[in-house]
C-alpha cells in the first residue's frame, strides 16, 4: 500500500510543523508541494495513466491498480495534505519506471512520526499505541493489519475533534469501519471468518437506522478510555456494549465517548447531558431538571389535596 523511504526520518518536513494541526480543512488549501506532487498524481491521481514505452516507441495507456490510486481532493483535505509525496515515499519514486526494489521497503506506522514528539503530545499517540496493542485488531497484525487500515495516510482527517456537524463526523468515522466490515473483499484479506452482515448482526438493536446515524461503531465496540479522546481498544464482538442503559441513562457513557470533546463546553440550560442536545437526543440521558422538579411538585400537591379530602371525608358527613 504505502512504502516509505528510510530517508523520511531525516526529511525536512518543511510544511509539517504546526500547520497540520492548527489549520482548518478547506478546499482552498494550496500545497507548497503541489507542482512536485503532480509528478505522482499525473499517474496515481486517477484510475488510468499514460506513459511512453521506450521499448515500443509509443504512448501506452494502462489502468492504475486501484490500491495505488490517490484521490487528489481527499489528499489535499487530509491531515497529511501539506506533505510532499517524497516526504514519505522514497525519492527514487520520482523516476519512471519505478525501481523494483522500492516495493520491498518497509512502511512506517503512525508512531514512527507521531511518537515522542511534543507537537503531538496532546494526541497521546503512545497511549493510543498501547490501546491498539490490546485491541482485537492487533491480533491481526501478522496478517497485515496496521494503523493505515483505518487511517488512510492519503485521506484520513481528524473528524470528531473538529466536528461542527457531529452527524457528519459519525458517518465519516463509521465508514472507516465499514470499509472492511461491509466489504468482504477487504475483510477477507485479514480474516478467515465467513462474510458478516452488519444489519443482521445488529438486528437486536431497536431503531437500528437511528442508532447507526447517531453513534459511532466504536461507542459500543471499544473500551472506554478516560484520557485518549478516541478509544482504540477494540473489544471482541462478544464484549460489545448491549445494555441500553449504558447510553440511555443520566450518567450516559456517550459523555465519555462520542461527546467527550464537546462535553467540556457543557450547556447550562437545565438539561442533563445537555451537550447531546446540540446534535441529537437520547431518551433517558436528556432530562430537564426544571420539568422534573415541576412534575414532582404537581404530584405532591395532588397527593396532599387527596389526603386532605380523605381526612375531611372521614371526619365529615360523607364517607
Amino acid at each position, binding site marked *: 500500500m504505502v512504502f516509505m523511504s528510510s530517508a523520511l526520518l531525516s526529511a525536512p518536513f518543511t510544511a509539517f510543523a504546526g500547520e497540520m494541526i492548527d489549520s482548518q480543512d478547506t478546499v482552498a488549501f494550496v500545497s507548497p508541494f503541489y507542482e512536485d506532487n503532480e509528478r505522482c498524481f499525473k499517474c496515481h491521481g486517477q484510475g488510468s495513466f499514460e506513459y511512453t514505452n521506450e521499448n515500443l516507441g509509443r504512448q501506452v495507456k494502462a489502468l492504475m491498480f486501484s490500491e495505488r490510486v490517490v484521490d487528489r481532493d481527499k489528499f489535499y483535505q487530509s491531515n497529511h495534505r501539506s506533505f510532499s509525496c517524497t516526504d514519505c515515499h522514497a525519492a527514487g519514486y520520482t523516476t519512471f519506471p519505478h525501481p523494483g526494489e522500492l516495493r520491498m521497503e518497509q512502511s512506517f506506522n503512525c508512531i514512527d512520526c507521531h511518537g515522542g514528539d511534543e507537537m503531538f503530545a496532546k494526541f497521546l499517540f503512545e497511549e493510543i499505541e498501547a490501546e491498539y496493542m490490546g485491541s482485537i485488531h492487533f491480533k491481526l497484525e501478522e496478517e497485515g493489519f496496521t494503523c493505515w487500515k483505518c487511517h488512510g495516510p492519503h485521506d484520513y482527517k481528524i473528524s470528531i475533534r473538529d466536528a461542527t456537524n457531529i452527524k457528519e463526523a459519525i458517518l465519516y468515522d463509521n465508514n472507516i469501519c465499514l470499509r472492511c466490515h461491509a466489504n468482504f473483499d477487504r475483510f477477507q484479506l485479514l480474516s478467515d471468518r465467513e462474510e458478516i452482515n452488519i444489519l443482521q448482526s445488529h438486528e437486536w438493536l*431497536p431503531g437500528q437506522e437511528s442508532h447507526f446515524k447517531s453513534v459511532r461503531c466504536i461507542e459500543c465496540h471499544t473500551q472506554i478510555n478516560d484520557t485518549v479522546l478516541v478509544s482504540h481498544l477494540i473489544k471482541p464482538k462478544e464484549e460489545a456494549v448491549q445494555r441500553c442503559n449504558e447510553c*440511555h*441513562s443520566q450518567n450516559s457513557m456517550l459523555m465519555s465517548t462520542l461527546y467527550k470533546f464537546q462535553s467540556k463546553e457543557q450547556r447550562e440550560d437545565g438539561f442533563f447531558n445537555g451537550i447531546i442536545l446540540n446534535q441529537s437526543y437520547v431518551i*433517558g440521558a436528556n432530562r430537564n431538571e426544571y420539568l422534573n422538579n415541576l412534575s414532582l411538585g404537581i404530584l405532591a400537591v395532588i397527593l396532599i389535596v387527596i389526603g386532605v*379530602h380523605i381526612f375531611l371525608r372521614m371526619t*365529615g*358527613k*360523607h364517607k
Partner: protein
Amino acid sequence: MYLYPIWVRLWHVLNAVLIIILIITGLSMQYTSKTDYLLVVGFARAVKWHNIAAILLTFNYVTFVAGNIFTDNGKFYKLNGKGLLPDLRKQFRYYALGMFRGEKPPFPVTLDRKFNPLQKFSYVLTMYVAFPLIIISGLGMLFPETVINRFFGISGLILTDILHITMGFLISIFMIIHIYTCTLGARPTSLFKSIISGYHESDDN
C-alpha cells in the same frame, strides 16, 4: 340503572391496563439508570413493552372514538358551552364543601347524564386533547425519521419528546384523580363495581 354497555367496559379495562403499563415503562425509560433497578424495569424491556402497549392503546383509542361516533355514548362527552363554567364551579364547590355538609350532588347520575360537569370536562380534555397529542408524538418517537430535524433551532425530537412526556404526566395525574374520585360513589367501592357490572348504584340507595 344500566349505564355502561359492554363495549365501553371492555374498552375501559383495556385502556386502564395499557395506560398502567405505559406509565411504568415510560418512567423506566425516562429515569433509567445503570445500576438502580428500583421501580424501573430496565430500558430494553421498557422500550419493547412501551411500544407494544402504545400500539394497542392507539387501536383501542380508535375504537373509543368510533364507538362515540356510531353509538349514543358520544352524547355524554358533549360540553355545554354557555353553562359550562357555572356548572364546573357548582360541582367543584360540592367536592370542596357541599359533600362534607351532607348536601346532595348538584348533578346526580341519570341515564342522560352519566358524568357530572367536572368529570365530563376532564374526560373530554383527556380523551380528545391529551390522547391525540400523546399518540401523535408517540408515533413520532416510534418513527423518528418522520419528525422534523430542527424547529426554530431546537431539535424536533426534543420537542416531540417533551410534548409526549408532558401529556404522559398529565394523563398520569388524571388517572390518580380519576381513581380517587371513583371512591366518591354511594360507597367507596360502588363506582368500581359499576364499571365492571355496567350497573350504577344510585347515591340514594
